[in-house]
């Protein structure tokens, strides 16, 4: 019988034992393939949208590099002059030129004073209706909006808000707030990317979105007698301006694809990173499975060797089994990945981003990547057990099957693992000794990797001591059954170590993230306590800037002794030495020093905010050789070039919010026209002495006009940060769940295989009077001990990682260390539950074992 045939027979004979390893491969590969398919499908959806909507030539302002750049801080999009459409239409080869005005800085408010539009962060888009819209929209129902006071909305928004023709919408824009009657509803012909769309007629759109006669984009369609490139050149020549960008349809599509592609790349890499973690955890499972299968087949393999099979053949036969496992697991994984992608799309649909399964994009690279990855990982994991199988001597056939229990974790292995762990830990400790972010990140990264590898290698050596301590605490109450469980957990340190390591990885990540999260929350709230003097901070819930009307109402609220806007304004700065750099300025009012304390290494915040002055951060000042009193040439976005004086230098790491380059609203207004002044993204307010409650009531009333506004005092503000960090942590935990599920499969697998391995032992114990209940309890306790061992390692390593990360981030201001005791306790309780859960099936199967079969001699 050939080697391949033997492998095939073995594989199918033991397919039950392979199921869990196969599942680990399947899950990880599914995650990888699902991620690739999902992001590719998203990309296809948007690509389609772009290519369907693009005209032969697209004309836009030079500053609006792409639709996904941060918009103009003034809330008014950059625009082209109104005369440009006629200029372009006159170009030879142009059939039509359609001017479009589009802005995302609007808020639509329904009759019940609630926001109409996406709740997921996707924008509400205000735009004029024109024929180019028909490329992505169906024929409108009802009437097109005509003149001021009329709008048309998209069908998805209509159905989600329950509004329809005849209802009234209130629209808040940069130019003010007005009521509009809905005259029509129009459905998406293509996929709705999740946004809400409000259509106006052209004049209304220009008036409320721009406050001027202009366009944000001109769609230029050719008469068909000229190439896109040629037409682009002609249009370029006709408009002849540096402020205008002219692109062919292909260039436009490519540019948008690239911009969006960056976003999807980030999503893809984050998801793939988590898939890799679970794949890594899966490796432990596969190693354990094959090690146990080889151990169980020792005599059989010995027999093969005795009748003449070479080491190589034995080695290969195990690897062929692994190959089969990898192929099955990966192919299933690829299919499951498709299902996962469809599921994710359905989930996106539930939150408003409709992606059609017609667009499901599966390139050949997806199955190839997934399957090659799955097979490679399986083979690599099976390599060592296969080598061990090859080393089995023919003598093994003659000896009693080696009863595991005398397998000692190798001393050399322990020494290497210990060394790696210690070096890694030293690197982590080194983080505390440096103030430079660069080397510190290096220490943390190196320390993380070395401690991880070191602990995985070292874990078997720790089994003895840690399991004994755990058992003496936990299993004391369980008498002989507890003792048997302890001995079973101890009998094969390498197996217990490997199983626990799988769990350790996920739990270490959870713990270290929890350390960082809780430290982040406490550091932020300490900074708020130390730095913020304002009683109230008002922001919108969707991070849009505050529209002018609402800002005015807030500034004029009663019982306030002072308010300060907080705007962000991009600018180009040139130093006296002629160095030019981009800098975003925190633009605030003169009362700002009462609202927030900013530590200065030179000068004061007041001096930074004095007319004609700015501040600069210490690092920049040092690099550029700039001192207090120096003059900087600054061009704020949309403004004239001006010369401002450095009034103060901000100490490193002292800013709680925004940018360390401060200047006053009045100073910026000197060189920037009113229309181009940024909208505040936050307004800070100080209540009159003893009138805090009254001030709050008054602010709440002023904020009432815009449902997205949130009035927060310092406690609310802290809570918001806490919630944000909590959400981020929960999302990460959710993604880590996959790795933890694979680790749980690993525990189940180890237990199930060891139950099979101990068939005769179990039969003996049952024969001499161990009840089923006691037997099941023994297996459950063993499982709990293994899981808790993993939790001890994971929490220990996670704390070390978290501490080092906090030390690193302390340089960025996260200087409070808080240990997340609640999370740690949850991790331990969770690990114990995982242990119980994992033992469910193995314990049941052990209990059902037939005693006679179990004790029957071979």
């Amino acid at each position, binding site marked *: 019988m050939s080697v391949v045939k033997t492998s095939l027979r073995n594989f199918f004979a033991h397919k039950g034992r392979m199921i869990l390893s196969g599942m680990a491969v399947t899950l990880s590969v599914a995650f990888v393939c699902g991620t690739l398919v999902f992001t590719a499908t998203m990309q296809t959806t948007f690509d389609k949208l772009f290519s369907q909507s693009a005209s032969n030539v697209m004309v836009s302002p030079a500053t609006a590099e792409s639709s996904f750049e941060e918009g103009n801080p003034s809330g008014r999009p950059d625009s082209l002059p109104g005369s440009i459409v006629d200029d372009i239409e006159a170009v030879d080869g142009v059939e039509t030129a359609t001017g479009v005005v589009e802005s995302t800085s609007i808020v639509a408010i329904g009759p019940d004073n609630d926001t109409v539009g996406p709740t997921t962060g996707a924008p509400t888009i205000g735009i004029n209706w024109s024929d180019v819209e028909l490329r992505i929209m169906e024929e409108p129902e009802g009437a097109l909006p005509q003149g001021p006071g009329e709008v048309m909305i998209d069908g998805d928004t209509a159905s989600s808000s329950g509004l329809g023709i005849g209802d009234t919408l209130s629209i808040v824009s940069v130019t003010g707030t007005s009521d509009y009657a809905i005259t029509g509803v129009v459905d998406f012909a293509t996929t709705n990317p999740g946004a809400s769309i409000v259509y106006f007629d052209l004049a209304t759109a220009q008036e409320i979105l721009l406050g001027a006669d202009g366009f944000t984009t001109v769609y230029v369609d050719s008469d068909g007698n000229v190439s896109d490139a040629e037409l682009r050149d002609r249009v370029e020549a006709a408009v002849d301006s540096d402020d205008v960008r002219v692109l062919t349809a292909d260039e436009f599509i490519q540019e948008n694809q690239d911009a969006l592609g960056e976003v999807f790349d980030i999503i893809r890499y984050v998801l793939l990173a988590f898939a890799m973690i679970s794949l890594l955890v899966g490796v432990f499972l596969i190693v354990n499975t094959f090690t146990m299968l080889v151990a169980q087949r020792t005599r059989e393999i010995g027999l093969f060797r005795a009748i003449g099979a070479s080491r190589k053949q034995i080695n290969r036969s195990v690897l062929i089994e692994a190959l089969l496992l990898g192929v099955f697991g990966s192919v299933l994984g690829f299919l499951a990945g498709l299902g996962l992608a469809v599921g994710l799309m359905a989930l996106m649909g539930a939150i408003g981003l409709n992606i059609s399964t017609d667009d499901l994009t599966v390139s050949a690279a997806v199955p190839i990547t997934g399957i090659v990855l799955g097979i490679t990982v399986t083979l690599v994991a099976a390599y060592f057990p296969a080598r061990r199988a090859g080393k089995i001597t023919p003598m093994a056939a003659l000896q009693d099957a080696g009863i595991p229990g005398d397998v000692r974790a190798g001393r050399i292995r322990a020494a290497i693992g210990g060394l790696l762990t210690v070096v890694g830990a030293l690197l982590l400790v080194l983080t505390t000794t440096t103030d430079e972010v660069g080397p510190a990140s290096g220490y943390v990264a190196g320390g993380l990797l070395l401690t991880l590898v070191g602990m995985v290698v070292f874990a078997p050596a720790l089994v003895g001591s840690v399991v004994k301590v755990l058992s003496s605490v936990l299993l004391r109450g369980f008498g002989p*059954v507890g003792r048997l469980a302890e001995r079973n957990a101890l009998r094969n340190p390498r197996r217990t170590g490997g199983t626990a390591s799988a769990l350790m990885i996920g739990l270490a990540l959870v713990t270290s993230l929890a350390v960082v999260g809780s430290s982040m929350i406490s550091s932020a709230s300490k900074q708020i306590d130390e730095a913020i003097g304002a009683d109230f901070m008002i922001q919108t819930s969707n991070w849009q800037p505050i529209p002018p009307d609402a800002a005015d109402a807030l500034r004029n609220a009663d019982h306030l002794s002072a308010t300060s806007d907080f705007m962000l304004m991009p600018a180009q700065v040139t130093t006296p030495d002629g160095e030019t750099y981009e800098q975003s300025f925190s633009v605030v009012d003169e009362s700002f020093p009462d609202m927030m304390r900013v530590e200065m290494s030179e000068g004061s915040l007041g001096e930074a905010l004095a007319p004609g002055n700015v501040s600069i951060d210490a690092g920049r000042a040092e690099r550029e050789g700039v001192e207090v009193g120096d003059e900087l040439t600054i061009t704020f976005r949309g403004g004239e070039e001006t010369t401002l004086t450095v009034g103060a230098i901000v100490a490193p790491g002292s800013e709680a919010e925004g940018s360390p380059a401060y200047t006053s609203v009045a100073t910026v207004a000197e060189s920037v026209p009113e229309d181009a002044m940024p909208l505040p993204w936050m307004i800070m307010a100080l209540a009159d002495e003893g009138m805090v409650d009254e001030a709050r009531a008054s602010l709440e009333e002023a904020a009432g006009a815009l449902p997205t506004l949130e009035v927060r005092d310092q406690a609310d503000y802290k809570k918001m940060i806490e919630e944000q960090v909590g959400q981020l942590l929960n999302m990460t935990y959710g993604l880590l769940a996959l790795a933890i599920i694979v680790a749980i499969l690993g525990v189940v697998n180890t237990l199930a295989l060891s139950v099979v391995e101990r068939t005769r032992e179990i039969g003996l114990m049952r024969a*001499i009077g161990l009840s089923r209940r006691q037997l099941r309890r023994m297996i459950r306790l063993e499982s709990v001990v293994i899981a808790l061992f993993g939790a001890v390692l994971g929490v220990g390593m996670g704390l070390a990682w978290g501490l080092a990360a906090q030390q690193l981030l302390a340089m960025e201001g996260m200087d409070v260390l808080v240990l997340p005791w609640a999370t740690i306790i949850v991790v331990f309780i969770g690990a114990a539950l995982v242990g119980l859960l994992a033992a469910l099936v193995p314990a049941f199967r052990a209990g059902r074992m037939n005693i*006679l079969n179990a*004790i029957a001699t071979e």
Partner: protein
Amino acid sequence: MTTPAVDETNGPSGPPAVAARADNVTKAYGAGDTQVLALDQVSVGIDKGAFTAIMGPSGSGKSTLMHCLAGLDSVTSGQVWIGDTEITGLKEKHLTRLRRDNIGFIFQAFNLLPTLTAAENITLPMDIAGTKPDKEWLDTVVNTVGLSGRLGHRPNQLSGGQQQRVAVARALASRPEIIFGDEPTGNLDSRAGAEVLQFLRRSVDDLGQTIVMVTHDPVAAAYADRIVFLADGRIVDEMFSPTADKVLDRMRGFDAQGRTS
């Protein structure tokens, strides 16, 4: 129920007390045409305080009979008693408790848990039951089987003979009403086997223990007080105060039969 195996239930004039009894026990595997009778209407009583051997060629049903008597296997029809308890029809839970408290086992191989020391293996049945071993009795047992120096050893540090002695000690330690041995010396060389058999013999003579042993080895069977011969699932003969030669002769008879049938 850790009564020493002393005759309590019967007066001096009554018949010998019975520690275990099979009554018309039939054990069938399969059904219809392919039905195989492993035991065919077997009735046998195991005397208290005696050493009984069950012999027979391979496939005679001797192991099945032991398994049925010990409550490890169910019967197709008939009844089995351990002491005064009918075990046929007992629930699994009660059977487990009965095995734990009233029965001792010695198997051919794999008698000991590899993770436990010799001492822990010996007291395991009592540990499982949650009862305290009688220290004095334990010492007696351990001394009888000659293991006092090896109690802290793991099974893999003991020779095959020592391992079987530990198994004997475990079976004796809880003073069960009856001990079943399934080829307890099958894996041992003749010297180690003789040692173990002597301990079994002594535990019957000195400690009053009841022992039933399945074996195919005439020398081993000769240690018994009585031999029950099985062939084709039926009891075909019985022999009291056997010697190895007598047993061998008898077995040769079976072999001849077996070849002709």
